[in-house]
């Protein structure tokens, strides 16, 4: 069977480009330019899926994004995409699609048993049925079964193989919709000198059908459309985006749009994204999104072979496909007459036009043309039901006067119940809607934002009026951006006299059991709406949740207005009183991958690397994430475990020498006459006594008195200081400083800048540190010349083959490890050279690089606190054993609140050291108790904050916060972890296990 329903001529399809595709495993052929839906119809395939709840056979219903039925599963290489709309999928060679929600096949679907039982499963049935027994446990079980029975397609299980990207864009005027209205608007705005972006969701502009013979500015409409589109395409200040759906209007006139870049290609190119998410900021938006046709509800209105009238015509005119051989039109407006004429021209036999209006009500020019073309028009009549098995075979037509129904054989029913302006984005832009009695639909009324609706989106269905509106909207939008148009005539078309619509939502059913579908996608019937109203779900939002009306991938584009009109009928109130549900973005579904764009997988956050990172990688470092930084955790040698490596590294610092990359520490430079005053206010200790060439440790508090951060500050010149912060608080402390300097103390003469990125930093620690450095630097390092806490600058001898020569460095004699140690800062681009120079000079002394784990071991051995574990936001300086640092003679942030009674109570948790008695490790996160066997509640005396195996003490040691801890030195307590099932006897002592007098620092 090869395209039996394809017309020999016409349409946009390229008959020289046949495309092979399969649907449900059956091979078919279509042409370039087809959608999957048009290609299926060309092959006579209407049945494409089973409905959501009752598993009724369903066919292609529309020709656009509003499609409720024709959702298919698309398989393509590693990816599978559920719920793809066949009506918008551009066919490519080799497309493989299948129907959803049916088993074993779309023709023979076991789930169709639901249809027979439909009286047992009305709207909300599961809320009623599955609420017993009344425990959540049972509902969870029921839910699994219900989800399997319903459901829409299958999600992919493999990682998304495609790439996506974002694109920001700015313009004066954004025109959404490239129909005739949008083209007129874009052209006018561009001629006024505005920067214009035009988004069109189809592959081309002006895709909506116009009455045959329509002329714009005296040229055939199609030629006018092509000319304007080409003019816009060439215009340097116009961006014309096709295959791009504007899906949401967000705060600040930000419009989200999704461009489908490669979905239409059989072999997507190697570079570039599958989809591009546009974030468009426009001074003004012209909304030319058109209108969406709605149906009329009657019994069995869901049989395949039932199409919206304009869609049937689109298949004939745009895709050169006959959607059937013999059609019955059912309408309440003039539009279907133009459609009937087009269908007839395409070779479809029009069996009858059933018009709900009387002759007098349907006296437009199109009616006359249809009559002239010999069509049978049945006025004041309704279609009361359709018959057929998996496809429509006949319809029953009854006049309203109660005459017996007349059966008409047909294989196509084309329905038109009127048009709903696509006001979705207008509503998202806080636009108010008004119910228009003539259109029997909601139209834009007013919006506080610069969004101008035009054409069919504004309820203006006539071409000549829509062109004028679009033109005026383009000029008005450009004016909002300060672009004034020269006098310019709007494009003109001959007005078409049409007769108004007579609202008709649903035709009463002949039999009570007849199924009349309002929402095809969610299987919501007229009876479901009545039931919801009876049961008290009278607000339109409640109706939606209770019946699922307007949910799903189509969001009720063809059904919402009918549903709320029927609810109004049930409640006996006017339609505007019922109102609409909220129009939320997205207008059409957007692939989730488009939202992260490039920021997925390993790149969900950026990564920061120190200047020495390459060396760490080459030398087998294991890395740990420290904020965004990658820091070496340890450097295991071949065959060595990480634990062994950490112990080896920690031991080398105590016995010989080690070097660690500390580039990640926050570094802030301060200059000005008042830096010492600022430091006095920030830190608990005193700073106006710090001499040039010296550094000092400081602790800063939060306003509430708790420790916020610690670090050293060095005085580099009379007015120039360098503050270091912890790695985690680098940004926070900088923000804190800027806040204080700009808002609290603007009178201080202090300027600050972050220099974390400027300086690569390393700490050289161990008894041999001076010996290593002495061979490298051009300054005297003796205790007299460069004592503990000295700061200076020097030049470091780089490798002899380094063309950049000596490395200028800042040298600090400070120690975190508790050993003789120097911190060396060099400009970041010399960091690696410095690191390599230190390692080369240290080789003779057995130098080892060490990572953050060994650094942690060394600081636990010395009882140095870390922001987080010990300074956990609940500890004061005194709790951490640094109460003496608080200078009594000056004020600082947090100090006034230190005197609160709770902060000076005797049972404060204070920092102590713990040594395990025995070989068992102190469990991580352990609580400290007096008696591990005591039944709960077992009073908690404190908790372990940091722990490690100390290769230097040769024991498991820990730091802990312990109630009244300083008075408990010598006590034996228990560290217990119910989670780990561990309990370890520990001895309490001072929080320092090595060199308590600090002699090693000063050697």
């Amino acid at each position, binding site marked *: 069977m090869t395209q039996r329903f394809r017309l020999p001529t016409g349409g946009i399809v390229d008959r020289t480009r046949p495309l092979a595709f399969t649907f449900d495993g059956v091979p078919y052929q279509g042409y370039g330019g087809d959608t999957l839906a048009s290609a299926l119809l060309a092959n006579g395939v209407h049945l494409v899926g089973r409905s959501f709840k009752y598993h009724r056979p369903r066919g292609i219903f529309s020709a656009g994004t509003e499609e409720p039925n024709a959702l298919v599963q698309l398989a393509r290489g590693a990816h599978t995409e559920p719920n793809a709309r066949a009506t918008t999928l551009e066919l490519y060679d080799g497309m493989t699609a299948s129907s959803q929600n049916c088993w074993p096949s779309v023709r023979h679907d076991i789930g169709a048993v639901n249809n027979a039982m439909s009286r047992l499963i009305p709207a909300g049935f599961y809320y009623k049925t599955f609420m017993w027994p009344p425990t959540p446990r049972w509902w969870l079980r029921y839910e699994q079964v219900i989800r399997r029975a319903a459901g829409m397609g299958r999600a992919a299980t493999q990682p998304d193989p495609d790439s996506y990207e974002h694109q*920001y864009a700015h313009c004066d005027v954004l025109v959404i919709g490239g129909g005739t209205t949008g083209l007129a608007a874009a052209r006018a705005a561009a001629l006024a000198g505005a920067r214009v972006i035009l988004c069109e969701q189809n592959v081309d502009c002006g895709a909506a059908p116009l009455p045959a013979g329509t002329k714009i500015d005296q040229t055939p409409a199609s030629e006018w459309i092509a000319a304007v589109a080409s003019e816009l395409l060439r215009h340097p200040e116009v961006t014309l985006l096709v295959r791009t759906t504007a899906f949401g209007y967000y705060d600040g006139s930000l419009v989200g749009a999704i461009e489908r870049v490669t979905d239409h290609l059989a072999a997507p190119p190697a570079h570039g994204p599958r989809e591009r998410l546009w974030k468009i900021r426009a001074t003004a938006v012209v909304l030319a999104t058109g209108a969406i046709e709605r149906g009329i509800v009657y019994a069995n209105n869901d049989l395949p072979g039932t199409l919206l009238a304009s869609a049937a015509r689109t298949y004939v005119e745009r895709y050169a496909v006959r959607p059937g051989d013999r059609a019955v039109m059912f309408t309440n407006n003039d539009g279907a007459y133009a459609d009937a004429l087009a269908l007839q021209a395409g070779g479809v036999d029009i069996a009858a036009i059933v018009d709900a209006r009387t002759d007098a009500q349907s006296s437009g020019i199109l009616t006359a043309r249809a009559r002239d073309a010999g069509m049978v028009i049945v006025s004041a009549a309704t279609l009361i039901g359709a018959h057929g098995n998996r496809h429509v075979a006949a319809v029953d037509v009854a006049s309203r006067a109660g005459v017996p129904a007349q059966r008409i054989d047909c294989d196509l029913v084309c329905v038109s119940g009127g048009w709903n302006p696509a006001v979705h984005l207008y509503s998202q832009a806080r636009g108010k809607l008004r119910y228009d009695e003539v259109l029997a639909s909601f139209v834009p009324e007013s919006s506080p934002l610069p969004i101008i609706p035009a054409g069919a989106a504004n309820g203006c269905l006539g071409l000549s009026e829509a062109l004028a509106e679009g033109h005026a909207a383009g000029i008005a939008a450009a004016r909002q951006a300060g672009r004034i148009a020269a006098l310019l005539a709007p494009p003109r078309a001959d007005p078409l006299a049409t007769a108004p619509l007579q609202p008709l939502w649903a035709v009463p059913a002949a039999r009570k059991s007849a199924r009349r579908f309002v929402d095809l996608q969610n299987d919501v019937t007229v009876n479901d709406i009545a039931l919801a109203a009876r049961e008290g779900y009278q607000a339109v939002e409640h109706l939606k949740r209770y019946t699922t009306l307007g949910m799903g991938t189509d969001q009720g584009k063809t059904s919402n207005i009918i549903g709320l009109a029927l609810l109004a009928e049930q409640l006996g109130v006017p339609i505007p009183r019922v109102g609409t549900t909220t129009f939320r973005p997205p207008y059409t579904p957007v692939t989730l991958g488009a939202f992260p764009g490039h920021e997925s997988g390993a790149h969900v956050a950026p990564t920061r*690397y120190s200047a020495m990172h390459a060396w760490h*990688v080459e030398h087998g470092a294991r890395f740990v994430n420290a904020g965004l930084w990658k820091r070496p955790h340890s450097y295991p040698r071949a065959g060595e475990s990480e634990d062994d490596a950490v112990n080896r590294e920690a031991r080398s610092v105590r016995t010989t020498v080690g070097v660690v990359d500390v580039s990640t520490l926050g570094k802030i430079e301060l200059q000005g006459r008042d830096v010492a005053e600022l430091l006095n206010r920030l830190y608990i200790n005193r700073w106006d006594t710090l001499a040039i060439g010296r550094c000092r440790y400081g602790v800063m508090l939060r306003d509430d008195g708790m420790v916020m951060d610690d670090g050293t500050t060095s005085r580099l*010149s*009379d007015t120039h200081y360098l503050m270091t912060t912890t790695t985690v608080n680098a940004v926070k402390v900088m923000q804190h400083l800027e806040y204080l300097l700009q808002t609290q103390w603007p009178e201080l003469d202090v300027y600050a*800048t972050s220099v974390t990125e400027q300086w690569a930093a390393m700490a050289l620690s161990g008894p041999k540190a001076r010996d290593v450095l002495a061979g490298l630097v051009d300054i005297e390092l003796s205790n007299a010349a460069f004592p503990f806490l000295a700061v200076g600058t020097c030049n470091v001898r780089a490798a002899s083959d380094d063309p950049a020569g000596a490395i200028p460095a800042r040298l600090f004699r400070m120690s975190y490890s508790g050993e003789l140690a120097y911190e060396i800062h060099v400009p*970041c681009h010399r960091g690696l050279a410095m690191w390599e120079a230190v390692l080369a000079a240290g080789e003779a002394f057995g130098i080892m690089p060490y990572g953050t784990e060994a650094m942690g071991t060394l600081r636990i051995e010395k009882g140095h606190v870390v922001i987080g574990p010990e300074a956990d936001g609940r500890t004061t300086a005194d709790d951490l054993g640094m109460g003496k640092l608080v200078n009594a003679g000056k004020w600082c942030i947090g100090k006034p609140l230190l005197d609160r009674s709770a902060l000076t109570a005797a049972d404060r948790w204070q920092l102590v050291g713990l040594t395990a008695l025995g070989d068992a490790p102190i469990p991580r996160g352990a609580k400290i108790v007096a008696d591990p066997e005591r039944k709960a509640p077992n009073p908690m005396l404190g908790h372990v904050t940091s722990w490690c195996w100390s290769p230097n003490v040769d024991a498991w040691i820990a730091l802990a916060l312990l109630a009244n801890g300083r008075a408990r030195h010598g006590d034996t307590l228990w560290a217990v972890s119910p989670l780990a099932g561990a309990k370890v006897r520990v001895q309490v002592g001072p929080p320092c296990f090595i060199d308590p007098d600090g002699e090693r620092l000063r050697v």
Partner: protein
Amino acid sequence: MSDDGTLRPFGAFDSAAPGHYGVSPGAVTLAEIPISVAWNVQGDPLHPAFLAEAKRRFGLALPLVPNTTARGPAWKALWLGPKSWLLMAGDETVIVPPAGFDAQRDALNAAGGALFDLSASRVAFMVKGLRAAAVLAKNCPLDFHPRAFLAGNCAQSLLGHINALIERPDATPTFVVMVPRSFAQDGWRQLCRSSAQYGYDVVVPVSMS
């Protein structure tokens, strides 16, 4: 770029090897621009002594209009904030002796201002060519249209999720994107990834004048 995070000194990357990448022919040129000197000068523009000292030191009037730059015979200044500028060598081939830093700092401190050496803090990339603005627009919410981002403008914004200082040195479609050194790999990767669909050439580090 390899994802193992290999970073060489001067911010040169494996994938920064000169050559053509992505589709052909290319519409974008990428290069690293060496920064020889970048000093952050801070001070209050309401203090004439500070402005005068800066002018005497650097031979240019610091730009006071937000997001603009100024050029002198040896230096150019980029506006960073109401009290903050970035001074860079106007021509990168002229190496300003860094030894002069301490004296300059002391003079500015004495005039009530401040001078910080940030020469190694940032890595600069040149994005040039017909699609240069499109490449930036994939990563940065600013408007790079020639009407909005003029030659001689600079702005601080984002490149993906990285802080970036972006400068447009002249009217050709050329932008200089400066990112913090530790983030340079991600920044470069982001530029390459966004350029591949247009095709791009990586050229050896060039100096911008």
